[in-house]
């Protein structure tokens, strides 16, 4: 009987580091409860509920998901001749357990049977689930589909679907990618035609790389306006699984074998429109993707935590040269680096989740509560707008930082285990394979950088960080570390000014460096706040600063160096295109 929540002090620490009660307050404000009999009595009760829910998730992750993970990885799922998919029995068991524990409607309103938990708590649960089985997070984490339905679909569609998500009876898929529309979703071609005779939409075309495409509820991005070629011609549709949609192919992947990745063929599939025409990509999918990106950041934390723990146990028990290998400085550094990186990424991801909560709830209240007094609605609207801009930077930053982090941590875990880590005998290789997808799907790291850099060049970064700089710490040591962060921020600003003055191309080329610098400064402030609460965190902060501040310096020097050869001398350096074998 393990528990991936109770054994993780750092996750529990966030009940202190973040004002969870405040999040509960905005979450419960105008909450639609229907006739639910599990409404919290007050805010403390709500916070207590969050802990209890995480405890349940922690138990299932340890006792069921983690135990099933190896077999799921080995066997995967099965594609049947009739274009359906049979889930691995262990995946089925995982789903049944989570559904029976009421964990499949985490953030949905109680009127549909949901738990009405804040995004922060859902993010924690996602991390915990992913530590048990990274691939299962793709089932658990698809709750964003239900959230999208809740946010944008008609009441009729909500009533039809949402309670079934909450019980775990159905799972969903976001059906976006096509063979020729991956990162560039504007070029989606799958056709949606309105059939006047039957009064319904019909979908035709092919989708590829669809996570859980064999799920019961599909949210499909399709071109409803055939004369408009860009994103404004796309709408979002919902359909139930039926024989007009066939799974043509199940991908053979490097990792996350438990998550079925499907190629789907739509043949006159009847579907219903979600919300308004033409807002499919620009409004709905963008909202969906933002939530999904935060989910991947949490998934990254989970796999990193699993890999780190495995490596730590091994380094502690494996003896060479007369003692455990963790006594060797080189190994100690690998593990310290991993642990600090996980905590840094967790700070960024959880703080971002809390900002999401503020934004979502401000939006929910302003949009759904009729007759909201002006003195309440105006500040909420203003808050929502500014948080939206902030989130447009923080969410891609979290996804970028955490996914890159987990790849490094999983890679280093294999290194700690040495030859044993390379073998299938340990889970280290599975973690590394599973981690590899996180900086690819829901937008590659390169795309996250494109999204995040706007916030850094537009001044959002600067004003956000300067708010943190206002905090005065009693501890002189913390004040000194804060001064380092102020100077680091100035380096980011200096870098931004330099690239802007040079060219757009040069800005693009250095975006990654600037985003890395920005992440470090923001995380530094989060850790500073935590260090004031906890001595151990102060040590973590010191390590983080000692490691990262020179990198900020290095990044700035590289930016100021002005080298653009990767673009200007591309052909000369990379040489001719190699002959196809």
């Amino acid at each position, binding site marked *: 009987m393990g528990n991936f929540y109770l054994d993780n002090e750092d996750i529990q620490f966030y009940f202190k580091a973040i004002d969870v009660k405040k999040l509960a307050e905005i979450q419960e404000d105008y909450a639609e409860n229907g006739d*639910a*009999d*599990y409404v*919290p*009595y007050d805010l403390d009760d709500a916070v*207590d*509920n969050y802990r*209890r*829910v995480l405890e*349940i998730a922690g*138990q*299932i992750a340890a*006792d069921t998901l983690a135990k099933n993970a190896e077999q799921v990885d080995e066997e995967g799922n099965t594609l049947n001749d009739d274009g359906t998919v049979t889930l691995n029995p262990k995946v089925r068991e995982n789903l049944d*357990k989570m559904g*029976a*524990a*009421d*964990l499949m409607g985490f953030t949905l309103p109680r009127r549909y*049977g949901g*738990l009405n938990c804040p995004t922060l708590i859902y993010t924690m649960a996602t991390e915990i689930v992913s530590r048990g089985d990274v691939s299962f997070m793709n089932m658990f984490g698809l709750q964003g589909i239900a959230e999208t339905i809740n946010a944008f679909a008609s009441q009729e569609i909500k009533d039809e679907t949402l309670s079934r998500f909450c019980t775990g009876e159905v799972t969903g898929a976001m059906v976006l990618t096509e063979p020729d529309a991956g990162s560039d979703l504007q070029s989606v071609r799958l056709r949606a035609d309105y059939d006047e005779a039957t009064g319904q939409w019909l979908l035709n075309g092919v989708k590829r790389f669809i996570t859980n495409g064999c799920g019961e509820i599909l949210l499909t991005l399709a071109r409803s306006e055939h004369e408009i070629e860009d994103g404004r011609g796309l709408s979002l549709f919902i359909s139930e699984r039926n024989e007009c949609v066939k799974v043509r192919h199940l991908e053979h992947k490097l990792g996350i074998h438990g998550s079925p990745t499907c190629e789907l063929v739509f043949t006159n599939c009847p579907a219903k429109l979600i919300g308004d025409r033409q807002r499919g990509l620009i409004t709905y999918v963008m909202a969906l993707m933002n939530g999904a990106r935060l989910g991947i950041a949490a998934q990254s934390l989970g796999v990193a935590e699993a890999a780190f723990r495995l490596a730590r146990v091994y380094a502690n028990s494996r003896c060479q040269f007369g003692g455990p290998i963790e006594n060797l400085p080189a190994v100690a550094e690998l593990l310290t680096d991993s642990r600090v990186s996980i905590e840094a990424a967790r700070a960024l991801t959880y703080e971002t989740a809390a900002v999401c909560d503020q934004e979502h709830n401000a939006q929910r209240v302003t949009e759904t509560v009729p007759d909201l007094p002006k003195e309440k609605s105006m500040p909420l609207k203003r808050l929502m707008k500014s948080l939206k801009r902030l989130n447009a930077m923080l969410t891609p930053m979290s996804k970028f930082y955490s996914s890159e982090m987990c790849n490094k941590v999983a890679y280093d875990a294999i290194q700690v285990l040495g030859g044993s880590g390379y073998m299938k005998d340990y889970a280290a290789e599975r973690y590394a394979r599973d981690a590899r997808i996180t900086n690819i799907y829901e937008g590659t790291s390169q795309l996250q950088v494109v999204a995040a850099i706007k916030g850094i060049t537009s001044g959002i970064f600067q004003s956000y960080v300067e708010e943190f700089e206002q905090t005065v710490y009693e501890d002189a040591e913390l004040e000194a570390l804060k001064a380092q962060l102020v100077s680091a921020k100035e380096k980011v600003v200096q870098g931004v000014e330099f690239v802007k003055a040079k060219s757009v191309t040069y800005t693009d080329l250095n975006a990654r460096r600037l985003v890395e610098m920005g992440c470090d400064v923001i995380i530094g402030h989060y850790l500073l706040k935590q260090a004031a609460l906890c001595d151990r965190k102060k040590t973590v902060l010191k390590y983080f600063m000692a490691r990262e501040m020179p990198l900020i310096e290095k990044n700035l020097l590289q930016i100021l160096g002005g080298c653009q050869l990767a673009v200007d001398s591309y052909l000369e350096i990379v040489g001719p295109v190699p002959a196809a074998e």
Partner: protein
Amino acid sequence: MRKMLNCANFNQDRNGVISVGFNSIVCVKQVPDTANVTSDAMTPEGTVNRSALPTIFNPEDLHALETALEIRDRFGGTVTVVTMGPPKAADVLRACLYRGADRAVLLTDRRAAASDTLATSYILSQAVKTIGNFDFVFCGRQAIDGDTAQTGPQIAEKLEIPQVTYLEEVIDVKDGAAKTARIRRNIGNGFEIVDVQLPALITVIETANEPRPFAAKKVMRNKHAAVPAEVTPEDAESLKAKGLLLEQWTLDDINADLNRCGLAGSPTKVFRVESIVLTKEGFTEVEPTEEGITALIQELISERTL
């Protein structure tokens, strides 16, 4: 099995209310966590220092509860849990509600203190009779504090119903005029399949199933549930209004004969408590011949092992 799902099972209680399916009563116990015993677990007098031990849900009782819940989920009916103990034992009742039990009863009475298995089984049998209208009584095989495995079978004796011990699987249940169950029981070196007429008492072992985790919404609701002894009378009123006041019974509520309860009803006397450290003292090799085995058996008999 599928066919039986279509047949309704009718139970009619005293008030004439008809319910469908199989009604189970599960006897559960809060026990000291003997796996985490600390040095102050025993008092100098040699009795168990209960206050120094963390308490847990008796492990095999969880499997008994799971068996009952599975039967209800498949065939309909109800699951009522009953426990005997101090007010704090309401913890295990709440844990049952978190997993989906329909009704929970705490039997708490100072006059029941110091009951041995004979008195306990008498009290529980009276509680089961008071609850009434049942097809199954489930117990864990044994509790980790006393390790006797006597209470379940003794309850069956007192209720004068059949008993099946060491359940591993409920293979089948049949309704109709005479309800029966087909059960696979573990007999140590194999299994035995038995048919039993209901109502029957069944004791369950831990290989029977995997207890389900808590359901979040049931936790959110029932964490507030309490027995009257845990709350003030005013709070009890407000809990009652919300349907969260758990039943709390005394020996009077179950018409118990006080001479059969507590110390008076307990012929078992603890003579002495010893701390025994098991040590290995070499081994004996037995020839795999008729003579060798005979000698071994005789030795075991003379040592009263057999």
